[in-house]
C-alpha cells in the first residue's frame, strides 16, 4: 500500500479523494441543494448497497474463474454454465427439501463434481494448449446451455428465501430528516446483507488459505511456474483437479445466491460469464484481490448507472473496462 502511494502519488490522491467523497455521500445528511440536483438520498443509498451486494455475487463467480485461469491458464468460458447449473441444482434441492443451507451444499458438491469431470476427462488431454481448451469450453457452454434448457425449460425460477431472512433490517444510516426533526433510517433486505457478509467471509478465507497454508503455497507456486512446481515432486494433476473443483463449486454457490437475489433463466449463464470476464479484466487476471476490487467496481457502476443513466448503464461498465485496458492492460491488481 505504502509502495503504491510512493510510486503513484497522483493516482493515490485521486483514489483517496474518490473514497472520501463516497464516504461523505453515504454517511452525511445531504444538503437540500444536492437532493434537488441528484435526487433522493434513499435512492442513492439503495443503489450503492445494491451495487455492493451485487459486487459480492460477482466476486463469488469471478473468483473461481480467476483462480482456474491463474493456475491452469484455462479461460473457462463454460463458467457461466456452471453458475446456472448450480442455481438449478439449488432450486431443485430447496424446492424439494425446503432447506436453503442444504441447497448451497448440494450445489457446491455437484458443480465441483462437474468441474472434476471436466478437468479429468477433457482438459487434462490438452494441457498447455490454451486456445484449444478455450474453444472446448465454448463448445461445452453451448452443450450445457441446451441440456439445461431441455431439462428445465425456459421458465424463470426463484429460490425461496428462508423465513428467518425475510424482511428488511434497519441500518444506522440516515436517509433523510423528517419535518418533525426525526431522522429516517435506511431499511435494507437482510438476506442481501447476509449474502454479502458470506461472500466477504469466503473471500477472506480464500485469501488466508492462499497466503497462509501449505496448499495455498503450492497453488501460488503453480501460478508462478507450474513446470518447476511439478519438477519438485508436487502432484500437480491433483492440485489442478482440486482447484478446478473448488472454482467450479464457487460458481455453483454463486448460482444459488443469484437464484435467491434475482432469478434463474436461460441467458443468465451468458450474463454472468460477461460479468466475470469484465471483473477479471478490470481487476487483473489470476488475482483474488483483483477479482474483489473489480467486482466491487463493476457492481457499483452497474447499479448506479442503471439508476442515474438507465439506457446507457452497460456503457459505463464497458467504459471502465476500456479505461483499464488503456491505462493498465494487465488489470488493476495483477502481479505482472
Amino acid at each position, binding site marked *: 500500500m505504502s509502495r503504491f502511494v510512493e510510486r503513484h502519488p497522483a493516482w493515490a490522491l485521486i483514489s483517496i479523494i474518490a473514497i472520501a467523497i463516497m464516504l461523505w455521500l453515504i454517511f452525511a445528511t445531504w444538503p437540500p441543494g444536492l437532493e434537488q440536483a441528484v435526487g433522493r438520498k434513499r435512492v442513492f443509498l439503495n443503489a450503492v448497497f445494491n451495487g455492493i451486494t451485487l459486487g459480492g455475487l460477482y466476486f463469488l463467480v469471478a473468483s473461481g474463474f480467476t483462480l482456474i485461469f491463474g493456475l491452469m*491458464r484455462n*479461460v473457462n*468460458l463454460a463458467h457461466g454454465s456452471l453458475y446456472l447449473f448450480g442455481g438449478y441444482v439449488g432450486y431443485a434441492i430447496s424446492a424439494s427439501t425446503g432447506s436453503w443451507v442444504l441447497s448451497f451444499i448440494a450445489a457446491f458438491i455437484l458443480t465441483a463434481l462437474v468441474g472434476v469431470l471436466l478437468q479429468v476427462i477433457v482438459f487434462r488431454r*490438452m494441457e*498447455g*494448449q*490454451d*486456445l*484449444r481448451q*478455450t*474453444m*472446448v469450453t*465454448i*463448445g*461445452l457452454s*453451448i*452443450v450445457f*446451455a*441446451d*441440456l439445461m434448457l*431441455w431439462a428445465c425449460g425456459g421458465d424463470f425460477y426463484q429460490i425461496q428465501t428462508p423465513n428467518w431472512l425475510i424482511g428488511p433490517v434497519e441500518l444506522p444510516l440516515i436517509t433523510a430528516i423528517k419535518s418533525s426533526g426525526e431522522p429516517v433510517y435506511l431499511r435494507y433486505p437482510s438476506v442481501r446483507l447476509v449474502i454479502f457478509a458470506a461472500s466477504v467471509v469466503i473471500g477472506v478465507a480464500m485469501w488466508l488459505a492462499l497466503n497462509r497454508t501449505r496448499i495455498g503455497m503450492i497453488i501460488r507456486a503453480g501460478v508462478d511456474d507450474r513446470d518447476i512446481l511439478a519438477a519438485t515432486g508436487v502432484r500437480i494433476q491433483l492440485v489442478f483437479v482440486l482447484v478446478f473443483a473448488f472454482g467450479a463449486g464457487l460458481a455453483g454457490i454463486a448460482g444459488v445466491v443469484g437464484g435467491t437475489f434475482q432469478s434463474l433463466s436461460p441467458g443468465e449463464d*451468458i450474463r454472468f*460469464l*460477461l460479468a466475470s*470476464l*469484465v471483473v*477479471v*479484466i478490470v481487476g487483473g*487476471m489470476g488475482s483474488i484481490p483483483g477479482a474483489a476490487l473489480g467486482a466491487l467496481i463493476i457492481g457499483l457502476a452497474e447499479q448506479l448507472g442503471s439508476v442515474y443513466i*438507465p*439506457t*446507457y*448503464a*452497460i*456503457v459505463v*461498465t*464497458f467504459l471502465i*473496462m*476500456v479505461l483499464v*485496458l*488503456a491505462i493498465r*492492460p*494487465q488489470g488493476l491488481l495483477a502481479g505482472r
Partner: protein
Amino acid sequence: MSLAHDAHVAVRPTAVAQRPTRTWPEVNNPAAWIVAVILLIMPLIASGFFLIEIFASTLILGTIALSLMFLAGYGGMVSLMQLTIAGFSAYMVAVFGVSGNANISLGWPWWLAVPMALALATAFGTLGGALAVRTEGIYTIMITLAIGAAFYYFTNQNWAIFNGHTGINTVATPHFWGVNWRADIPFYYIVLAVAALCYFAVEYLSRAPFGLALQGVRDNPRRMAALGFNVNAHRVAAYAFASFVAALAGVLQVWNYRQISPGSVSVGACIDVLIIAVVGGITRPIGPFIGALIFVLLRTFALDFLVRIGLDGNRFRLLIGLGFLAIVFWSSDGVIGLWQRWRQRQRPRTDRPGGGRGHG
C-alpha cells in the same frame, strides 16, 4: 512464451512450398472452376427458398466468418466480435437509411447510408481491435467477447438509437436502374459478388507483403519487432481490414432480412461465427464458406431430421455444440483438415508432410 507459441494457428511450411509461383492457386484447380460455374448458374438450378435461405445465407455468414478466419488464421487473433461489427453496420444502414421506424431512421438514400455504415463499422472494429491488441493471445477472446456482449446488452437497453429489443423493422432495400435488387436473383448475384470479392481480397492479402508480415507477427512477434516491423500496427490494420469485410456482410444481412434486432447480435450468434470458422477450418479462406454451408444446412434441416429419427426437434444447438466439440477434439483445422488427411491417406507418398497438427 507458451502463450505466443500456442496462440498462432497452423503453421504449414509445406503448404507454402507447394505453390512456388505467385499465381492464384485457383487457376490450376479444376474443382475451383467447377464450384465457380455452379455458383454462377445457381439461379437456374435452385429456386427462391434454396437460393436465398441456403446459398445467400451461406455466403453472407461465410463472409463474416471469413473476416474471423483472416484474423485467426493469418494474425493469430481469435476475435469473437466479428458478428458484432456486422451487426453494427446493419444497424447503421437501418438508422441512416429508410425503415419502418421513421422516428429513428434518418431516411438517407442507400448510396449515402451504406458508405456511412461501412465507415462507422470499420472505425468501430478498428477501435475494438486497438483495444484487443493491448493484450495477447488468449486474452483477445475474452476482450472481444466482452465487447460483443456489451454491444448486445446495449442494443437491448437503448431505445433512442437502436429501438430496444424490438429492433428496426422493414428496412428499405435498393431499387435503381429499374431493378429491385432485393428480388431473389439480383440479390443472390450481389451477395455472390461481395463474397467473391472478399474471398479474393483475403487470398491476395495473404500473399501480399502485408499478409506475409502479419503471418510473421503471428508466428513470432518478438522477432518481427526486432526486424523493425511495428507489430501492433500490423495487428490493428488486420482488424481494420477484417472489420470492413464484416461490415460489408452486415449490410447484406440487413438487406436480406429487412430488419435488425438485438437477437441478431446476441452472444450466441457471435459464437456461431467462431464455430462456422473453426468447423470449416481457419487455415484457408475457403474454410469459413464450407463451415457456413454446413451450419446453414444443419440450421435449416436439423429440425426435420431430428424429428424423423425420433428425437426432439429443438435440440439443434446441442447438435451444433457436439459437432463443434468433435471438430475441436479431432481435427484442429476443421473439415478441410479432415479432407486433406483423407486424401493423403488415399495416395501414400514417401514425402508426406508429417505432424502438421496446428494448434491442436
